C-alpha cells in the first residue's frame, strides 16, 4: 500500500510552507541549550536534523503534560460542569524517529481501549507523524532489542529515509500521510531503488533477548536483592517516565476555588511514592526498589498481557536523561542473564 517516492532536501522548505499555509502547525526537534524538544517551527532550517534523539519525546502533542478534563462553576446552589474547549490544531510531527512513531501505537492501545479517551483521540486524529529513519544512533539506543529498527515504519504516516543524494526516499504509508504530501506534490519525485536505502541506516546492536523476557522477569519478581541492587542509585524522580514516549500514567488534580476551577490531568510516574500511597498511610510500594521493579515489570512483562506488546520502543531517552545513569538496556541485559 505504501507508495514510494523521493523528496529533495531543498524542497523541504516549500513543503513546510504548503503545510503551514494549509493551517497546520509543524512540531519538530528544536535545540535549546544542550537539550532538544519538539517545538513549533516555521522552516526546515530551524529543525535540529542531526540530533540522534530529542531530550523530550513527541508524546506531548497527543498527551500534554497538563490539560483540563472539565471545568466547573458554582452560582449559588447550582453547579455547572462543562467540557473544556477541545480544539487542538492540526499538527504535523516532523523529524520523529521510528521508535517514537511506534510509541504512538502503544499510546493508542492505552488510550483508545474501552472506554476511549476523547482528549487523546481528538489530538491523535489531528496529528500526522512524519518520521525520519536513523542514520546514526548512540549507546543508549536499543530499538533492535524490542522488535523495532532504525528504519521501521510502525506508527508513521510518512517515513523519510535519508539517501546519500541530497534527499530522502519517502514512503507514504497512510492516507493521512498522502494528504500532507498532496499539499505540495511538486516537492516529490519518483521512487529510488530499495537496496540503496538500507546501506545508510544506523547499526544498533541487539542488547538482550526479547523472546521469553516477560516470563523471565515474572520469575525474577521475588528476587528482592536483585531489584534493590539495581535501584540503589535511583533517586526516585519522574524524569524517566516524563521523557519516555510511551509512559502514559497520569494524575487527576482539581485546581480552583469553591466558585470555579478545573479538573486537570497531569503526567505522573510510578517512580514517585505518592503514586500508590493510600490515605491511610499504607503504601504497597514504599521502597524505591519496588517502584523500579514496577517500571520494568509494567513495561516488559505486564504490558505483554494487556497490550499484546511490550510498552517500550528502545529510544534510550530514560537512560540519557537519568541523573543517576540508570541505563535500561544494561539493566534488562543483566535481568535477562540473571541466574
Amino acid at each position, binding site marked *: 500500500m505504501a507508495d514510494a517516492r523521493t523528496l529533495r532536501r531543498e524542497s523541504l522548505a516549500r513543503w513546510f510552507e504548503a503545510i503551514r499555509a494549509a493551517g497546520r502547525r509543524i512540531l519538530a526537534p528544536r535545540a535549546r541549550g544542550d537539550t532538544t524538544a519538539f517545538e513549533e517551527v516555521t522552516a526546515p532550517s530551524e529543525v535540529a536534523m542531526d540530533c540522534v534523539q530529542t531530550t523530550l519525546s513527541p508524546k506531548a502533542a497527543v498527551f*500534554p503534560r497538563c*490539560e*483540563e478534563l472539565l471545568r466547573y462553576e458554582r452560582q449559588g446552589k447550582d453547579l455547572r460542569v462543562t467540557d*473544556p474547549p477541545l480544539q487542538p490544531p492540526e499538527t504535523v510531527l516532523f523529524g520523529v524517529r521510528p521508535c517514537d512513531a511506534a510509541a504512538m501505537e502503544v499510546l493508542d492501545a492505552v488510550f483508545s481501549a474501552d472506554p476511549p479517551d476523547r482528549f487523546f483521540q481528538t489530538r491523535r486524529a489531528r496529528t500526522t507523524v512524519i518520521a525520519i529513519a536513523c542514520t546514526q544512533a548512540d549507546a543508549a539506543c536499543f530499538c533492535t532489542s524490542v522488535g523495532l529498527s532504525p528504519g521501521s515504519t510502525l506508527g508513521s504516516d510518512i517515513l523519510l529515509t535519508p539517501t546519500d543524494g541530497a534527499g530522502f526516499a519517502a514512503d507514504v504509508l497512510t492516507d493521512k500521510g498522502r494528504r500532507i504530501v498532496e499539499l505540495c506534490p511538486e516537492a516529490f519525485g519518483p521512487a529510488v531503488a530499495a537496496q540503496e536505502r538500507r546501506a545508510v541506516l544506523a547499526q544498533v546492536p541487539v542488547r538482550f533477548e526479547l523472546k521469553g523476557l516477560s516470563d523471565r522477569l515474572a520469575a525474577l519478581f521475588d528476587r528482592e536483592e536483585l531489584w534493590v541492587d539495581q535501584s540503589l542509585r535511583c533517586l526516585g524522580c519522574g524524569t524517566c517516565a516524563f521523557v519516555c514516549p510511551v509512559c502514559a500514567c497520569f494524575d487527576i488534580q482539581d*485546581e*480552583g476555588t469553591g466558585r*470555579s476551577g*478545573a479538573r*486537570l490531568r497531569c503526567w505522573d510516574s510510578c517512580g514517585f511514592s505518592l503514586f500508590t500511597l493510600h490515605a491511610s498511610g499504607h503504601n504497597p510500594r514504599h521502597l524505591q526498589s519496588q517502584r523500579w521493579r514496577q517500571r520494568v515489570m509494567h513495561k516488559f512483562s505486564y504490558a505483554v498481557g494487556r497490550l499484546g506488546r511490550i510498552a517500550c520502543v528502545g529510544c534510550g531517552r530514560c537512560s540519557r536523561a537519568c541523573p543517576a545513569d540508570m541505563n535500561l538496556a544494561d539493566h534488562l541485559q543483566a535481568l535477562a542473564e540473571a541466574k
Partner: protein
Amino acid sequence: MADGFEPRLTAFVCNWCTYAGADLTGTSRIRYAPNVRIIRFPCTGRIDFMLILKAFEQGADGVIVSGCHPGDCHYTAGNYHARRRWMVFRRLLDFVGIDVERVQFAWVSAAEGAKWAQLVNEVTEKIRALGPLEEFRRLPMPGVQPIEVM
C-alpha cells in the same frame, strides 16, 4: 494608570501590634483607603512567604506585611525571624522579576493608628500607579484561562 483601577491589597498583620494599631485607626475615626483586606496572624513569624505568592495568585495587586517593631514581639523573637525571612524572600522575588515594590513590609505598633492609615494610603497610591498585576493574571488559572501545556 488605567483610570478607575482600584488596586486590591492584601495585608498580613500580626494580632498583637499591627491589627491592634489598625483597630486604633478605626476607633480614632481616621479614614484610609478601603482597598486593603486585612488577614490576622498570631505573629509575623507565622506569615509564610508562600502566602504572599498565594495572595498574588488569588488576585491581589499589592501585599502589605506588618507586625510588631523588633523587641516588641509578644512571642519575643517572631519578628526577628520574620525580618530574616523577608530579607531573603524579597531578594528572591526581585531576582525572578516580581516587582518588590508590590510587597511592602512594615512595623506598626498597637499605638500607631495614624501610621497604619498612612501606610495603607501610600501603598494604595503606589500600586494604583503601578497598575494591576497583569503578569500573574496572564498565568493560566484553572477554569479561567485554558491550561494546556505541551
